[in-house]
């Protein structure tokens, strides 16, 4: 009777010890199972979403840049900034519909590369803001012309052979120069000539009615196109661009330079008058911000005109 009780006690003690050991091991294994089951989905989702929104914004902003630029290569900074703001609001709404996250895009005017565009919107004599007929487009800031469009009213040309209207570029370092001369050639022609310091280059006759369009490579009349103009042939940039006898012709123009010019010769906005100066964006940098409960991400998106160096 006594032996049976002792045996039972031993079995009980042994069972307790084994139970404690099992509980200890179960605790340890439980920790392993818990770790294995904690899949890091949150971090993966956040980074994937951030990448997706960044790529979407990059593509959309490129299209927005091209669209705002319209027919020109470069959009104006105010137009690009306001369109980017509107786009950002739409993107934020889309992102918020996907979940609790914040996405924002804004034009960074400090890091974006800008150029100057000089515009005379209305057809009139080609004078500066002060009304000077002889003036320099980029005083004290040698530059390079990247866009050029001058529309001259041929019927309003009063320039003569002895007193022509001309646009001249000159590199003050090398002394090289190039000019485009325009004068009336009676009875019914308007003559365009180009020459540089090496000698005459091209001569072209258009009629005396309609509009002549001068760009970087040609002059086009109502029925004739004169190729081979090649603005600033033989003159390495940067150079100064001057206008002589702007009172002898009438027209509108748009010139984009590779540098930012001072506004002394121009009005600072289209509403003030012609000619005016506006900053255009060569390479836009947009601040992109993505934020959710796990990830805070800020970067810059670079967008530039096609073919821009």
């Amino acid at each position: 009777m006594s032996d049976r009780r002792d045996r039972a006690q031993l079995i009980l003690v042994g069972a307790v010890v084994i139970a404690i050991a099992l509980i200890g091991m179960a605790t340890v294994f439980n920790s392993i199972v818990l770790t294995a089951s904690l899949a890091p989905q949150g971090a993966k989702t956040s980074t994937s979403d951030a990448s997706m929104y960044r790529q979407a914004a990059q593509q959309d902003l490129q299209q927005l840049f091209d669209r705002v630029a319209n027919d020109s290569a470069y959009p104006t900074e105010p137009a690009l900034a306001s369109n980017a703001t509107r786009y950002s609001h739409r993107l934020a709404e889309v992102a918020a519909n996907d979940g609790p996250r914040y996405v924002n895009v804004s034009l960074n005017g400090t890091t974006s590369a800008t150029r100057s565009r000089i515009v005379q919107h209305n057809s009139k004599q080609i004078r500066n803001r002060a009304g000077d007929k002889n003036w320099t487009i980029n005083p004290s800031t040698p530059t390079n012309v990247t866009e050029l469009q001058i529309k001259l009213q041929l019927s309003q040309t009063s320039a003569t052979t002895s007193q022509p209207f001309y646009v001249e570029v000159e590199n003050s370092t090398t002394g090289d120069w190039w000019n485009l001369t325009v004068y009336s050639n009676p009875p019914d022609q308007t003559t365009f000539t180009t020459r540089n310091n090496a000698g005459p280059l091209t001569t072209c006759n258009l009629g005396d009615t309609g509009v002549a369009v001068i760009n970087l490579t040609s002059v086009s009349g109502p029925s004739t196109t004169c190729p081979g103009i090649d603005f600033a042939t033989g003159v390495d940039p940067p150079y100064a661009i001057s206008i002589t006898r702007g009172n002898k012709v009438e027209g509108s123009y748009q010139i984009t330079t590779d540098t930012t010019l001072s506004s002394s010769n121009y009005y600072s906005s289209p509403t003030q008058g012609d000619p005016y100066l506006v900053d255009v964006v060569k390479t836009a940098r947009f601040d992109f911000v993505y934020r959710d409960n796990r990830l805070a991400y800020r970067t810059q998106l670079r967008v530039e005109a096609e073919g821009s160096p």
Partner: protein
Amino acid sequence: MIGSRDRGVSIAVSHALTIAITTLVISGLVIAAGGIVRDQREQSSRQELRTIGERLVTEIARVDTLAGSDARTTVSLRTDHPLDVAGSPYHVHLSTSTAQCSAPPCLVLRASGTDVVITLDVVSDTPVADSTATGGRVVIVYDGSAIHLETGGRA
């Protein structure tokens, strides 16, 4: 009446032997179980640290992708991991030391209660900075120059 088979054996001796044998058996069980638990604890610590480390390496790679070595970019990714492994707190060290890494940079995870240390290679195009975080909530930060770890507090 004591029989011939019980000669030389008293009740006291019988009890003493019973107690002694019982003690030996229980001690053996406890020691054996303790050893097993300790081994399992180290084993589980190693496995847990490796699991956590591999996740952190993946998350660092994600930050690396977002960072793109761009000085204008900042990233802060909060990651949540177990506060401890097998009941012990642990530390995560992002190291660039050749003494710790066979191919720097690497991630060194060390549990406080054990001697378990796990080292994992980190593949990153973005520079990394030596940094340490306590296990649990770990924040992976790219500040425009390098990726580093910060302790993010309790999850």
